[in-house]
């Protein structure tokens, strides 16, 4: 069995230690161990049902919202366990941003969408400047500068998704979790988001779940391959630098998946 941890020079942004996830009696993840390198893009790939989105949602405790979900093990963020009894899910999600599969802007103005996070967190500085910075970072500023007060629903799907990224950036998160952010977008909008991820990578730790292997190969620095089989629920088969995982996979299951023989 492969060990899913890799030795890295810098201390990891997030460390997953012996993580098991259950939905009621169903086990979704088994013994996941991972070190997410800082200021890089890490992709989770694998067949559908392998638990890659569930794993992502463990990192900022979004699984708490599902009543039947239960987590064992640790997720370390700055050395503190995200699941310790003293950790507040609110604070974890404040420091770890998330972008979802389908763009989900609030039914508010473009401006208010970006300002939402800082407002509830008690930000007292110059909101206009903050909103502008985030929209610029998300490569959306030039398209929306004249209509910040318009409803976010007037934007196209790709623009909405970039707005959701701007909304997450507004909290200055160290980590941004992206759950198949391009799966509902057309190829041009997808390209814009991928470019954006590359631009953000030097300053942010990005964890990307994708069902699209080309996307993982194009944008990510590191890749974790998860799978599921009769004997074992979702687990990490292989984790390493993207180039290595794709060119010289160490495991048979990874190779099968990458070459299209499975999944």
């Amino acid at each position, binding site marked *: 069995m492969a060990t899913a941890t890799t030795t890295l020079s810098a201390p990891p942004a997030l460390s997953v230690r012996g993580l098991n996830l259950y939905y009621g009696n169903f086990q979704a993840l088994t013994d996941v161990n991972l070190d997410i390198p800082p200021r890089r893009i890490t992709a989770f790939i694998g067949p559908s049902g392998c638990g890659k989105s569930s794993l992502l949602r463990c990192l900022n405790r979004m699984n708490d919202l599902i009543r039947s979900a239960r987590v064992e093990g640790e997720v370390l963020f700055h050395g503190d366990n995200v699941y310790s009894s003293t950790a507040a899910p609110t604070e974890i999600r404040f420091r770890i941003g998330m972008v979802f599969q389908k763009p989900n802007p609030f039914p508010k103005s473009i401006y208010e969408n970006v300002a939402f996070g800082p407002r*509830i967190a008690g930000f007292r500085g110059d909101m206009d400047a903050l909103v502008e910075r985030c929209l610029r970072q998300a490569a959306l500023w030039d398209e929306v500068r004249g209509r910040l007060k318009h409803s976010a629903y007037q934007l196209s799907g790709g623009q909405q998704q970039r707005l959701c990224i701007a909304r997450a950036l507004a*909290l200055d998160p160290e980590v941004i979790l992206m759950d198949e952010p391009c799966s509902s977008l057309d190829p041009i909008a997808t390209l814009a988001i991928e470019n954006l991820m590359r631009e953000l990578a030097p300053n942010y730790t990005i964890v990307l779940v994708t069902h699209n292997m080309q996307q993982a190969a194009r944008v990510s620095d590191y890749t974790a391959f998860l799978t599921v089989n009769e004997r074992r629920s979702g687990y990490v088969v292989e984790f390493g630098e993207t180039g290595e995982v794709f060119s010289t996979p160490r495991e048979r299951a990874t190779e099968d998946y990458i070459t299209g023989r499975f999944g």
Partner: protein
Amino acid sequence: MRQSQIDTVRGISAEQFHRSLRGRRLVGKFAVIIFLFSTFIGLATLAALIIDVLIDGIPWIDWDFLSTYPSRHPEDAGLRSALFGTIWVAGLTALFTFPIGTATAIYLEEYAPRNRMTQFIELNITNLAGVPSIVYGLLGLAVFVSFLGMGRVVLAGALTLTLLVLPLLIVAGREAIRAVPDSYRQGSLALGATRWQTVRYVVLPSALPGILTGTILAMSRAIGEAAPVIAIAALVYVTFTPGHPFERFTVLPIQIFNWVSRPQADWQHVTAAAIIILLIVLLSMNAAAILLRDRFQRRSEE
């Protein structure tokens, strides 16, 4: 670099954040208490109402109370005429409402073309459901009592209540019919059944429990209504039970209204006793409707 000149949220220290988070959580906890309290306001009022009525009325309920006519003396007063009046009116209303409401629901769900006329009928039904009940009373007074010359009789009351509760039944009926899976219809049509045969032998039997539930609920609304019936029946001293639809009548809510404003304490007890009877009738109808709905749901899940 431009970014560094701008305030950032990361500038909020962990300490500041924790302090504000404590405040935010406190607000949240306080709010939950208010939300929960609000939820119980309605229930507490309902409980207070029921207890108040029971305390005032229970000692006054006996067989004589149900079987004697109203009287000038509270200790002799009874509900006989009101009970029979309610049975008459509710029975006739059900007789009229069920076929008309069901037919309308069938028409709108199974036959109506998607055109402006249909939209107009639907909009019209929605708005009729929002018309104050006393306005139906005025309609009945002008049309049934005066124009058609029926006078202030059972039939006029029943027809007025029919118009009042019809929208309720139509809405319930449509929901029940819509819940019948399309595959049933297609199966029937594929066997060579006509549209009507499909409705009659496939759709209606499946939708019937839902329609009956709607009918019961509509009837309980009709039985509880006082305003429109007062406009029809007026506030009379009825000391007989109606023998046919063209006699004068009174109903339970009118009798209650008649008694409620009398200042003497004994009348308050009589009123409470009558309310208990009315609530028993209505609650058992509601319970029947819920049971019917449950049984129907369970069967359709099988």
